[in-house]
């Protein structure tokens, strides 16, 4: 992890956890400031993560491109660059009341149990 990467190379890839563990804070910030920009940008990122065509058994891969909706590597599992994405899906659904995040969480969690 430790993504000091933008200027030195890996600015084409992101990982699920890094892209999907921003939303709670940004949603809250929009709520208390009244400025929607934080939530708009952060939630769009989350929606895009959900929109990437998935792997076998509908699994999320850990690594994805930033410039197109596609996984860059097939790394399926629950590890350091993945786990908090699922955590934030569930919490974001609870915080916003938006069912699509709860559903996305359950879709992913149910497969993980198998």
């Amino acid at each position, binding site marked *: 992890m430790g993504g000091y*990467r933008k200027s030195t190379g890996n600015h084409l890839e992101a990982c699920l956890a890094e892209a999907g563990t921003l939303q709670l*804070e940004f949603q809250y*910030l929009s709520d208390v400031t009244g400025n929607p920009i934080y939530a708009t940008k952060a939630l769009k990122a989350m929606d895009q993560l959900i929109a990437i065509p998935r792997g076998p058994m509908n699994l999320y891969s850990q690594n994805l491109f*930033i410039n197109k909706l596609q996984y860059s590597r097939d790394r399926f599992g629950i590890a350091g660059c993945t786990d908090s994405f699922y955590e934030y899906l569930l919490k974001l659904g609870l915080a916003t009341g938006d069912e699509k995040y709860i559903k996305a969480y359950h879709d992913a969690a149910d497969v993980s149990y198998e």
Partner: protein
Amino acid sequence: MTPIDALDTLHIMGLTKEAQEAKDLILKNLHFDLPIEVSAFETNIRIVGGLLSGYELLGDEDLLEKAKDIANRLLPIFDTPTGIPFNSVHLMG
């Protein structure tokens, strides 16, 4: 970074004096005009998150202002073709 991380915990634990000291330290010393590249993920969960939970618990508007400051410096990470963010950003743009 530690006082920011710990601020909400200190408050919840009833360590009011320590929480106040941490808050004063943060408001006096924390600034983001630093010529460094940071991890967006780490900065968000520890600094934005720490400042916002401090604001939520203590109600100090100055904490919110600091949170807005650092969040504004993170916003450029989302300027990508997909809206999926870069994983790091330079604090001074």
